[in-house]
């Protein structure tokens, strides 16, 4: 069991920021565990989602933002749907990832690399180019064996486009990303 000294170790600013960015009142969580019971990812998490909620209440910023769990939540909405206090738990998990990104933390780096490669593809073409995304992911992670076994199953069916479908307004989409970066850095 971890013992936390609330008076000394609680980062109240962190608690307030999570509440502000998610629009949720984290103190409503009374630790019933319903979210963890229904979470399909508990087996892969280092900290179960109900404990993430408790650690947020306790202002344990470093532990929470360094956890693998926040990168393995698939936003399946099971926790949000079943929370008896109507806390949007999945939204809090999302906000914790946003904060971890801003702190330069990603405890499951390949997940972040995959999501970044996806957005790079959208930024370049206006739509995601599935093959290009996979190639960028493999190049950046060096995981050359990723899904090699699927190639003979998918290519003969003509399902994986070999060329990106650039949209006419791709500059509009690129500008969304540019403005977002500018606003985040200002």
């Amino acid at each position: 069991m971890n013992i936390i000294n609330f008076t000394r170790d609680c980062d109240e600013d962190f608690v307030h920021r999570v509440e502000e960015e998610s629009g949720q009142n984290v103190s409503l969580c009374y630790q019933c565990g319903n979210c963890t019971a229904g979470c399909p990812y508990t087996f892969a998490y280092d900290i179960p989602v109900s404990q993430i909620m408790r650690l947020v209440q306790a202002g344990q910023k470093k532990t929470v933002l360094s956890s693998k769990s926040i990168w393995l939540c698939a936003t399946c909405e099971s926790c949000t749907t079943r929370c008896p206090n109507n806390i949007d738990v999945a939204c809090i998990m999302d906000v914790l990832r946003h904060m971890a990104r801003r702190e330069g933390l990603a405890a499951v780096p390949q997940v972040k690399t995959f999501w970044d490669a996806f957005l790079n593809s959208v930024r370049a073409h206006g739509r995601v180019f599935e093959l290009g995304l996979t190639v960028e992911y493999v190049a950046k992670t060096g995981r050359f064996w990723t899904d090699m076994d699927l190639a003979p199953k998918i290519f003969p069916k003509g399902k994986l486009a070999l060329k990106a479908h650039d949209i006419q307004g791709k500059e509009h989409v690129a500008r969304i990303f540019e403005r977002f970066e500018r606003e985040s850095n200002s």
Partner: protein
Amino acid sequence: MSEAIAYYPGCSGLGTSKEYDASTRAVCAKVGLSLVDVPDWSCCGSTPAHTTDHTLSAALSARNLQLVADMGMKLAVTPCPSCLTNLRTANHRMEKAAFAEKANRLLDEPYSGGVNAQSVLQALVETVGLDALKAAVRTPLAGLKVACYYGCIMNRPPELMAFDDCENPMAMDNVLAAMGAEIVPFPLKVECCGASYGIPRGDIVARLAGKLLEAATLAGADMVAVACPLCQMNLDLRQGQVNRALGASYRIPVPYFTQLMGVALNIADADIGFDKLNVDPRPVLSKALTGAQ
């Protein structure tokens, strides 16, 4: 019979879920639902956008919502649950002025609001209706045992998705029953399949998809019908990976519900696209249909 509805295909409809897009278009045309493509639509940003930032995610979706508004329309349908969630979330969050102002700052053309998004399944059930769907059947799917798998986000969270039951949805069950299929009870209708972790964490998908394939097999299903490109990919294309990881030997077809509708409505094989699937549903299907005669 009905007014035209804006259609947002989603990126996977151009690639890994071509057969979902083609069968959706053919089924809708057959039952009188007139779909008009959103011109020059862009990606909604899917999971990678909302896990990065909510304003970025809303802006990527809102560009498309505004394109729908520019068409003079107030409703868009999409086959993809991830697109659906993002479009609905953006519309919902941008009802708040402060948030809308932030998201609009990222856009060339601000979003004027008021565009609703629905799943193709919802439009078929609510706009066309089960009676009309039933009346259009030419080849009943008699004798075919189907487990209906909705995926995790088509109905959840209920306040946002506002369609069907969030724990035990019935829309797809009812549609395929109207097509003549025998629906088997399937307890994991809304359980997550592993979503977009197939590439970065294949081990997770093997375990979660394996649980679904196991439940469908135990339920006595001939097939698992799906409504999501990512669920389809995890359960069908990755079925061999699941088998290797779990030492299992599942071989169960996972067609889109629109493909099964295509059979019942006598749509051309090229539009149904069973040849695009990994586990071919045709042997099981013809066995069930001949057995029932």
